């Protein structure tokens, strides 16, 4: 309980520190909205040439768009600190953290929330709202939605953590390997079933964003049962978080201090 209170206090302090840069915040939100708008512009182009993709209607795909954006938004708002790992390593800033009497991964994750995440989350919520207005979902979906979003954010963050942990081995002032995971998440905006088999396996089982985005979307279409829509995101999130902790603990043992 004490640990929980500690992490909560740390998060609130980090949030206050980020909120101090108000112009950054405003520009960040506008930026996040513009990025989502750019993705929606492509959606518009695609559906102006096809009535459906892989038998998925525009409103069904719009739901995937919204879920992807909310997943990203929640992860950025709460567990975004992992993006700073390569720079912490280069500057030798992890020295102190590793002697703190706390678990290092949660500390790193919650120490740098991004407020522009509000733009991503809001645009995602609007997309889901519009999608559900066009094609009303079963009542269960309203109760499962928070679970899907939290599971999606955990899976996405875990995937970034696993890839980011490579920074303990390959040192460099860059986060491109993490951006590859971020860009892979964008594939969740469209039905996984339209992709080649290797990408389906990658996004459903290896970095299983699809379990929290595509599976709920399929449930709303009647392709999967309620049971699958409940268990798949939970199971994938649990497995991803466990693996992320394991990889972090294993590779952080190889940490060598740098900087001066």
């Amino acid at each position, binding site marked *: 309980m004490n640990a929980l209170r500690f992490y909560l206090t740390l998060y609130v302090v980090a949030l206050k520190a980020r909120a101090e840069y108000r112009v950054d915040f405003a520009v960040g939100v506008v*930026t996040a909205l513009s990025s989502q708008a750019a993705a929606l512009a492509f959606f518009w182009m695609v559906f102006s040439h096809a009535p459906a993709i*892989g038998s998925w209607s525009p409103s069904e795909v719009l739901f995937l768009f919204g879920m992807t954006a909310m997943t990203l938004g929640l992860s950025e708002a709460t567990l975004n600190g992992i993006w700073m790992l390569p720079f912490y390593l280069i500057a030798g800033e992890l020295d102190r953290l590793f002697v703190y009497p706390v678990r290092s991964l949660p500390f790193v994750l919650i120490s740098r929330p991004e407020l522009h995440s509000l733009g991503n989350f809001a645009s995602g919520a609007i997309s889901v709202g519009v999608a559900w207005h066009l094609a009303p979902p079963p009542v269960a979906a309203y109760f499962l939605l928070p679970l899907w979003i939290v599971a999606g954010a955990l899976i996405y963050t875990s995937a970034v953590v696993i890839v980011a942990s490579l920074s303990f081995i390959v040192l460099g002032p860059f986060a491109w390997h993490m*951006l590859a995971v971020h860009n892979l998440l964008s594939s969740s905006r469209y039905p996984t079933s339209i992709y080649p088999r290797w990408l389906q396996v990658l996004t459903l089982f290896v970095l299983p964003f699809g379990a929290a985005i595509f599976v709920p979307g399929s449930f709303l279409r009647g392709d999967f049962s309620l049971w699958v829509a409940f268990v798949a995101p939970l199971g994938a999130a649990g497995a991803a978080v466990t693996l992320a902790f394991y990889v972090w603990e294993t590779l952080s043992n190889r940490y060598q201090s740098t900087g001066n």
Partner: protein
Amino acid sequence: MTPTVAVRLPASLRVSTFAQRATCFVVLAEKTARTRLTYRLSTVLALLASGLAYSVILLVWLRVYHENPKPGPLPLAKLLAYLVTAFVTSEVLTLSVDWRVLQRVRMGLIATDVIRPLGFVTFQMAQAVGDLLVNALFALPIFAVGLHFVGGGLLPPDLASAALGLVSGALAFFVSFGLTFLIVQAIFILHSGYGVVTAKMALHQVFSGLSAPLVLFPESLRNVAVWLPFRHVIETPVTVWLGHADRASVPRLLAAQAAWGAALIAGGALIFNAVLKKHQVQGG
């Protein structure tokens, strides 16, 4: 924090003749390229990351054409050739000027850049040429892979298209640099740039023709895109190179590129002179 002041260099340190300036420019471009090549792994990972994002666009279009073989004015072979060439062009013309300036503004190192004898705009452009050279080096294998899968459709239909495509590519560099240099001005004002840089990338993604040629845009989106400079970074050079652009319209397209490039760089330089007077150097 100290306000930046204009510094007049002694005559012995000024770079005044064209030959001196050209030499400085080439040396700086070469040094930038060498610096970038030091971080080869970073560049390869960056390519992989953008390749993954772009493969989603490619796969979605393939699906659209699979389900609807005649979805628009462009046959699949032509669209594939366009998309692969657009990706390669985008990778070559992705300049790091804004990220570099952002980092130097935040650390206060920009104070030394603004008093370089070469001039700030030329200094940045030389580094942008360095970026371009390294990008081209890494883009060549992608083009070769594209050639293997898509075939001769990636090559220009005749020598004239090749020559005009290369001219258009060169002009696209100036448009891309001009757009990036405008973003640099926002970085000077905000002391931060993540937001504006990302916003520019979003606009580029929509309006440059990176996701599709303008003929596949919904009409209202196309009507906006034709009035913006972004299309001259990707769509214009790619359609000229591939011979997709009507030959009669090519001179007009090249002129538009040149005009946009000149206007953006001149506009950026003017704004730079104004913002520099108010800029406060960070650090100390």
